[in-house]
């Protein structure tokens, strides 16, 4: 049983990534977008009163948020274009496997965008993150998981509507308040070299959000697949 779940999940993720890798459109767009947002936010402030350090965490997470939306949209758009979702339903793929496969595909997509944006972030904002890299990456991973889980569920719904590119942010952004606020709070504390005790509160909020909303999204995904 578990073996089937694993293979099915992997197959879906691999298919999605292969298709994306062929054209790399969404990936390149997200990347360019990330650079642009980082740059604009860098200049969009009074440098004498708002230091690099103050704006950096917010800039990083605004960038990830919006770059992520681009990636999430693409995930189900593929299917809609060729009514392929119906085709998928005919295969013995369980809703769980479909959801997990999509989530993993999205995570890898967004993960790569984040990993490429991070050096640019260090470059533009001149923040000392090398020593803190492991914990920072952990925070990025945690926030991304919650974001992608809810985003995958919502993008599956929204893809059926006409203005899916606008609808996804409208529905998704409220759900991003807990994880992104936590991520920004953690990021600036990490960059400010604060002790671990200051991080635990926000880490537990982030973890709780991830656990609850990942589970919820997984359970509700089945309701979205219409026969």
């Amino acid at each position: 049983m578990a073996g089937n779940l694993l293979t099915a999940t992997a197959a879906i993720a691999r298919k999605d990534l292969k298709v994306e890798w062929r054209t790399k459109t969404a990936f390149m767009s997200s990347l360019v977008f990330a650079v642009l947002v980082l740059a604009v936010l860098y200049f969009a402030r009074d440098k004498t009163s708002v230091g690099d350090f103050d704006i950096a965490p917010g800039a990083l997470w605004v960038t990830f948020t919006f770059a992520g939306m681009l990636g999430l949209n693409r995930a189900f758009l593929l299917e809609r274009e060729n009514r392929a979702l119906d085709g998928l339903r005919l295969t013995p793929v369980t809703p769980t496997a479909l959801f997990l496969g999509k989530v993993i595909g999205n995570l890898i997509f967004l993960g790569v965008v984040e990993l490429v944006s991070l050096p640019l972030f260090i470059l533009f904002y001149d923040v000392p993150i090398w020593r803190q890299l492991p914990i920072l990456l952990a925070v990025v991973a945690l926030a991304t998981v919650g974001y992608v889980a809810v985003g995958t569920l919502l993008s599956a719904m929204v893809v059926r509507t006409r203005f899916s590119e606008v609808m996804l942010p409208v529905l998704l952004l409220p759900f991003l308040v807990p994880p992104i606020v936590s991520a920004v709070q953690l990021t600036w504390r990490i960059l400010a070299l604060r002790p671990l005790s200051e991080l635990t509160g926000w880490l537990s909020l982030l973890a709780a959000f991830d656990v609850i909303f990942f589970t919820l999204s997984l359970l509700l995904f089945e309701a979205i697949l219409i026969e």
Partner: protein
Amino acid sequence: MTRRERALQTARRGGLVTVIALVGLAVVYVRAIAFTPIERTQGPAQKIFYVHAPIAWATMLAFAVTGLLSLLYLTMRDRKFDLMAAASAEVGTALGIAMLTTGPLWAKPIWGTFWTWDARLTSTLFTFLLFVGYLVLRGALSDFEVRARFSAVLGVMALVLVPFIHVTVYWFRTLHPDPVVMKPEGPSLPAVMLTTLLTSLIVCTVLYIGLVMQRYALAVLEDVREEEEAGDGIS
């Protein structure tokens, strides 16, 4: 009784409940303005509280009801729950508009600022935004089954989300004390003010119920009409 007749009856009863509530609201207005004393330090603007707080309560009630009905729909797949959830959402949005306009009008004279991102205000704002998203999603889906399921999913997710937003903002502010000093509403309200507040609370709840009954009846009538038209299409 046919479904249509039952809906019309619900509409009639809902209309009656609404009228009672509106009369009650007029009574509350008179009592609050003329028969409740003015608070010495805050002035007449404090009286907005008697309208704003109960409406806010009704809005959050509408939100909780939509969320719970969404859950019921997902577990029992009864059309009725979907239509009721949607009715509660629309009424909640209307009340939410009243809430979000009266709130800042109360905040400016009392707190000195129209808005502040504290836990309560932020949660109610996002509740409103989620309501709007819910209605927009429904508007964009024409198939009944799809619309019902998708909005139910959103409804359940939203219900779980709002407490998270509340906690997030609460921690955010506790660790970042706000420069704006906020006056508390007072440790306890004198009896005459409390009565006004409670009366208003009851009136707004009854108003919510009456409006939802009517809106639900409307949804059923629309549904019945669509079924009839679909049936005619075949013959």
